[in-house]
């Protein structure tokens, strides 16, 4: 008996933990022992919702160049560029993944303006060397900030000249909304940061040269062990960069990627063919900067090969409908089990609630992104979760009808449960595996959501249908022993 009590305590604690995790407001635990502002122990529990539930944008980009025209590192660099831009949009759960050898998948759940997002992603990186002359003290303060340059102004003008008139209206509409978005405190400040003008002149900063003038860039280590970035210029670049640097020795020069100042070293010498950027770089910083320089010099042009845009309202409606369907379905099962099997049915219903909590907690902990098909998979797993219990209870009934006493009948009922439940789920789990693999194809990703939640539910069911139900049944029987023995209908006969 004591083992049942131990199980009961364990199950109740587990259920409590799951309730806490599954509560929509739970953000997780973040413990910061040394007070440096970053968590030393962190458990993130936020439910990721798929595009169809939260709205947003999913876009699969493919290189327009053949795969042998670039290296995997170029692709990573391009993906990094995309990540940086996507982050600048201030979307919460943005993900950027490299797929295969020439694709990048971007998911922006909850993004407000999908079209703008696609534009931002697809634009090739703009790397600029910008004149910071006369800003000696302020130059370093501008690192990491967004600035407006003459080159950006030029590109903006060209873009507007090329766009048909109709598109101007929506973009004019969206810009006034932007400051509001920044004010509600959820969006990172970088998003809507106003591009700064040159404080010395009040005009956009002067672009000296764009990334087109760069031939190559690499991180290297100096003889005294410091990291630096070596770069080479193209002939064209040298023609511009040489005279400029020659006339500005001692002045700062900014390296700007997509409007963000990456670094502002000062010019040491006239650079006609290339040079080095020195500073107090760590290895990581040096490599990143070199990568960013190269990415400006060698971007992979990307084309959209599939995309999905879902409006936010649509997503919310789907969430509401799914919750309603789920609640109704579960309620019917609970009622059916309790009416059909009485006390054992009540134990199974309690176990089913634990099963649901456990699933919901694991969706957050693993984490599993919930989509509509994923919810269907989960709901079907709820339907088959009681399958195991039914196997057990039918057996229990047979034993009780043969006039065994309750304890013996219960023991007998659970005796072969494990094998039969495993056997009756195995083909579905195997098929789920096939479906999961099928869902790895970018175009069929909805399928994997369904397969994952279904398989997870079926596997958890091995635990809940047997151990949890048995524990609850023993506890209920301990409480209702007398009535259960005298009134057989309580045991479902």
């Amino acid at each position: 008996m004591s083992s049942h009590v131990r199980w009961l305590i364990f199950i109740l604690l587990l259920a409590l933990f799951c309730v806490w995790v599954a509560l929509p407001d739970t953000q997780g635990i973040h413990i910061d022992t040394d007070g440096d502002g970053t968590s030393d122990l962190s458990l993130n529990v936020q439910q990721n919702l798929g595009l169809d539930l939260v709205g947003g944008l999913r876009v699969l980009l493919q290189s327009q160049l053949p795969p042998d025209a670039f290296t995997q590192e170029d692709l990573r660099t391009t993906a990094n560029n995309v990540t940086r831009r996507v982050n600048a949009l201030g979307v919460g759960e943005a993900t950027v993944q490299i797929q295969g050898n020439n694709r990048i998948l971007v998911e922006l759940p909850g993004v407000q303006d999908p079209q703008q997002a696609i534009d931002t992603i697809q634009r090739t990186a703009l790397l600029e060397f910008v004149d910071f002359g006369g800003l000696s003290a302020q130059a370093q303060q501008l690192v990491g900030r967004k600035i407006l340059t003459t080159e950006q102004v030029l590109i903006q003008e060209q873009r507007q000249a090329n766009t048909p008139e109709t598109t101007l209206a929506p973009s004019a509409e969206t810009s006034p909304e932007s400051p509001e978005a920044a004010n509600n405190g959820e969006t990172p400040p970088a998003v809507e940061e106003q591009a700064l003008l040159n404080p010395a002149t009040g005009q956009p900063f002067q672009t000296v040269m764009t990334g087109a003038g760069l031939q190559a860039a690499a991180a290297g280590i100096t003889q005294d062990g410091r990291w630096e970035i070596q770069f080479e210029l193209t002939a064209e670049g040298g023609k511009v960069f040489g005279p400029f640097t020659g006339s500005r020795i001692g002045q700062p020069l900014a390296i700007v990627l997509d409007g963000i100042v990456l670094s502002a070293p000062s010019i040491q010498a006239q650079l006609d063919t290339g040079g080095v950027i020195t500073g107090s770089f760590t290895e990581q910083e040096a490599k990143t900067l070199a990568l960013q320089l190269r990415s400006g010099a060698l971007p992979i042009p990307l084309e959209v090969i599939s995309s999905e845009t879902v409006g936010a309202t649509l997503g919310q409606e789907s969430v509401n409908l799914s919750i309603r369907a789920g609640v109704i379905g579960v309620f019917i099962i609970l009622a059916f089990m309790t009416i059909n099997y009485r006390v054992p049915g009540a134990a199974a219903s309690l176990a089913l609630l634990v099963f649901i909590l456990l699933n919901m907690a694991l969706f957050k902990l693993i984490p599993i992104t919930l989509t509509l098909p994923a919810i269907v998979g989960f709901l079907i797993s709820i339907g088959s979760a009681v399958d195991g219990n039914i196997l057990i209870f039918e057996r229990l009934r047979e034993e009780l009808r043969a006039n065994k006493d309750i304890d013996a009948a219960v023991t007998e009922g659970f005796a072969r449960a494990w094998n039969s439940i495993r056997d009756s789920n195995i083909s579905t789990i195997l098929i789920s595996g096939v479906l999961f693999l099928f869902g790895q194809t970018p175009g069929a990703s909805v399928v994997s959501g369904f397969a994952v939640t279904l398989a997870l539910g079926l596997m958890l069911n091995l635990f809940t249908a047997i151990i949890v139900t048995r524990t609850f049944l023993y506890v209920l029987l301990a409480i209702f022993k007398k009535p259960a023995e005298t009134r057989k209908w309580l045991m479902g006969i």
Partner: protein
Amino acid sequence: MFTIVEKRRWYFLFSSLIIIPGIIIMIYSVATTGRLFRLSIDFEGGSIFELRFTEAGADESGLRAVFTEFGDDNPLIQQLGQAGEYRWSVRTGFHSETETRQIQERLDILAPLDRDALRVENVSATIGQEVTQAAFVAVLVAAVIVTGFIILAFRQVPDAFRYGVCAILAMLHDVLIVSAIMSLMGLLFGWEVDALFLTAVLMIVGFSVQDTIVLFDRIRENIPKFLGEPYETIVNRSILETIHRSLTTQINVFFVIIAIMLFGGESIKQFVFILFAGLLAGSYSSIFIAVPLLVSWEKGEIPFVNRRRDLQTAEAEI
């Protein structure tokens, strides 16, 4: 004692009454549209626009005009929901992002578009081909797994081949029914076979085989227990022993599925409906197709198979 398998001819007749018209529908579909099913953009590539306008003004011809402007000769336009909801679904060829945006702006002129309730999906032909290939692989792998599963389940049984074939025939019965339904719905309501349809079919296959195996297992266990009883009696007994459990477990899944069909969102209704129909067929076919087939085989009623066997025995006797 109930007599179940004794009425097997009726079950075969009943299933034929569903499957034969189903096959005719599929043939009709191939004859008129050139294919068995309508394929969704998942497989074919293309774009789908799910639109909601905030007020009246957009009608089918208006929508058609807009899409024709963007090079779609024959967009598939369907009204969704009730008339007062101004919801439409338009299926077209593949559009780039830029075109997608221009199309929306043109649609805005017809009637104001609710952009928060918009769904646009663009799938290029490349991705469609990949999904198609992956689908074939998935079907192949599933077939191998199911066959392997059946072989494993009956590995030590006499006449294992017979059990296996009957289980597979019952499964094909379910797949045929679901395919016929899909073909019919495609002709009537423009339903399209997408990645989720394939998912439903594979699930149905899994459930169907599982169900049959549980039943066959019981028959196998009961044969030595009730030696001397007629085969049909043993089989009837096995069905009765498992039917209760089989129905009760299915019922719970059906509760959930019906709840989703009635109260869940529109976009998964098709998937859930197919799943429902398939599981229903699967439960039916285990009892009323797989087992009766087994009995018919045992009693030598299957014309082609049994005649050949008679010949073999005859030869052996000579």
